[in-house]
């Protein structure tokens, strides 16, 4: 515990800022470098950092398997859902000008914002899932099919 305390304290301090930076990168994708993918990867990396320092059991308790599974699908659904919404409102698939905002530029902004959120969610959830499935030591060491 003695040598771990530095790592744990620093990680506890850093993880909220990393997540805040990740959200900043996702949301400001249209006015600077960044976007859904980069922010999603940074968000996933914050959970991976927590799991590396505190153990994968503790990390998996924070983001349990059902949560990451559902979130990775929800992101793709948001993306496709916005596209379908544009289709249902009378225009082409993923044509943001059909969205009900006054100004087509504003509609474009909101459409892109929604899409980036969806992409960020999926990427973060999938990165966390891949890490936990790859690094997880099986209890007892037996595999499923022997």
């Amino acid at each position, binding site marked *: 515990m003695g040598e771990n305390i530095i790592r744990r304290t620093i990680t506890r301090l850093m993880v909220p800022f990393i997540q805040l930076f990740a959200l900043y990168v996702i949301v400001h994708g*249209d*006015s600077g470098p*960044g*976007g859904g993918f980069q922010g999603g990867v940074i968000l996933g990396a914050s959970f991976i950092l927590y799991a590396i320092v505190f153990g994968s059991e503790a990390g998996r308790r924070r983001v349990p398997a059902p949560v990451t599974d559902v979130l990775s699908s929800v992101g793709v659904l948001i*993306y496709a859902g916005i*596209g379908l919404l544009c289709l249902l409102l009378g225009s082409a698939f993923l044509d943001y000008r059909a969205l009900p905002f006054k100004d087509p530029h504003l509609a474009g902004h909101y*459409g*892109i914002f929604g899409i980036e959120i969806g992409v960020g969610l999926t990427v973060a959830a999938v990165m966390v899932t891949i890490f936990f*499935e790859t690094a997880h030591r099986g209890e007892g060491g037996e595999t499923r099919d022997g």
Partner: protein
Amino acid sequence: MIDILLLTLLVLCALAAVEMRDLLSAGLVLSGYSLLMAVVWTRLNAVDVAFTEASVGAGITTVLLIAALSRTDRGEALVSRTRREIPSLILILLTGAVLVYGTLDMPDFRDPGAPAHHHVAPRYIEGSAHEVGVVNMVTAILAAYRGYDTLGETTVIFTAGMSVILLLRRRKQRG
């Protein structure tokens, strides 16, 4: 000058990562190679791509490699039954020669008259400020002009996550 230094370091890192027998060290050298690649891309003004490579290549790939190494062997075998160095060297020299012969026909580096800059690119560069209203042209192309491709890319990531779950997740033993 710094470009030549960066390119030389890139080649040295790639050689080191390929030749090292300790796979953990090779993975860390690969992480340094990814970071240097991100710096080279920043020098080429590809800021979005450098951001992605730094976070994905130097971050996620290294973590996945170390996690995979924790469940397989850390070192490469000393002696392998089939020695394939000489035929492989001949093959890569031939392929490299063919590729270099192909680059002789390409437009010069940084040539503004290259055909890559004349068909769709001016439309996207103009339209990103006027049609879409977004300052970052790469995001405008990714999310507006070529949004359908980005949906496919998100599906690819989702499929990778599902594949890893299917391959590696253990069902809880019952009884």
